[in-house]
């Protein structure tokens, strides 16, 4: 008999709970790479997740870590309290673009500016997914949603907000990057960016932020494959991938 080796299995820190996401939803990929990092970095026992409101609201079902469910947009404020009360724990928020860039804009800006030692995973799918695909601050110009049925118009609704660029201007931010999970190469890069954002917290350097461009096939009214392709054809040209800030240990206060 030959010896067979499992080279890709279920991350230990992830429960085997069936995920409620739609087919082709990139929340699932983001969840898995986050879990792989909790395992690889030995963080599962000390991690506290602060989850948000949106399609990822059931995040607590999917990880074997303690979790605080924050009111809409308030995850960075709740995470601030958790981290300050439990400085030895690894604290992360997981938020959608409606949650983080709309109702929670103030909380994320101030949390980042204060340089809270927390890490934020920001899933930008350009819509409010959970509530039926309303326009978000990140909706692309011309993109049709239930609240801009004729397409987002710059004159009326402004331009899509590039959160990673904005946050990278703030003093408390140690690491800020934008990634995608639309192909194998980008999935690998996304995981490395998340690892660096987590390290910024573990090495007490400041706030870490990773924006993940994500497909929402349901509200984009596309097949999973079409939605996946839209990431490269429409989103990346406007939301460029890359590391926007990476402060080394020496530079931190």
């Amino acid at each position, binding site marked *: 008999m030959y010896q067979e080796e499992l080279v*890709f299995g279920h991350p230990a820190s992830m429960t085997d709970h069936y995920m409620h*996401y739609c087919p082709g939803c990139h929340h*699932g990929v983001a969840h898995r790479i986050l879990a792989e990092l909790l395992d690889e970095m030995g963080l599962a026992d000390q991690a506290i997740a602060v989850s948000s409101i949106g399609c990822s609201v059931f995040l607590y079902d999917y990880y074997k870590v303690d979790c605080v469910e924050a009111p809409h947009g308030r995850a960075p404020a709740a995470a601030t309290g958790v981290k300050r009360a439990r400085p030895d724990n690894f604290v992360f928020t997981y938020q959608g673009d409606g949650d983080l860039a709309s109702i929670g804009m103030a909380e994320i800006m101030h949390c980042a500016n204060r340089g809270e030692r927390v890490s934020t995973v920001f899933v930008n799918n350009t819509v409010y997914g959970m509530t039926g695909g309303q326009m978000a601050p990140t909706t692309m110009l011309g993109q049709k949603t239930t609240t801009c049925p004729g397409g987002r118009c710059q004159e009326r609704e402004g331009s899509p907000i590039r959160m990673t660029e904005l946050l990278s201007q703030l003093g408390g931010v140690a690491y800020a990057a934008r990634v995608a999970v639309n*192909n*194998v190469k980008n*999935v690998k890069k996304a995981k490395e960016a998340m690892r660096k954002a987590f390290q910024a917290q573990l090495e007490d350097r400041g706030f870490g932020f990773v924006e993940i461009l994500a497909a929402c096939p349901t509200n984009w009214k596309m097949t999973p494959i079409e939605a*996946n392709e839209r990431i490269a054809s429409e989103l990346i040209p406007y939301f460029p991938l890359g590391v926007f800030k990476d402060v080394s240990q020496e530079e931190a206060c």
Partner: protein
Amino acid sequence: MSRIEVLEERCKGCLLCAQACPKGVIAQSERINQHGYKVVEAAAEKKEECIGCAFCALVCPDVAIHVYRTPKNVKEEETGHAG
């Protein structure tokens, strides 16, 4: 030889794995799971071509693929025959 195991009750038939596979191993099956999704499989005539790269599993949004690899040398040493 390498192979994949599709966890049929997790699969949602999105086909992102099929698109990512460099060997064209994965195809839609005729089976529908309890959630109503038409699940994928390693097609009978193609599954021998799996190289265990795990590209399919890396892009799967539902952690529905496990990948197994058998190092060639181990196989030859222990079984005494190649292939």
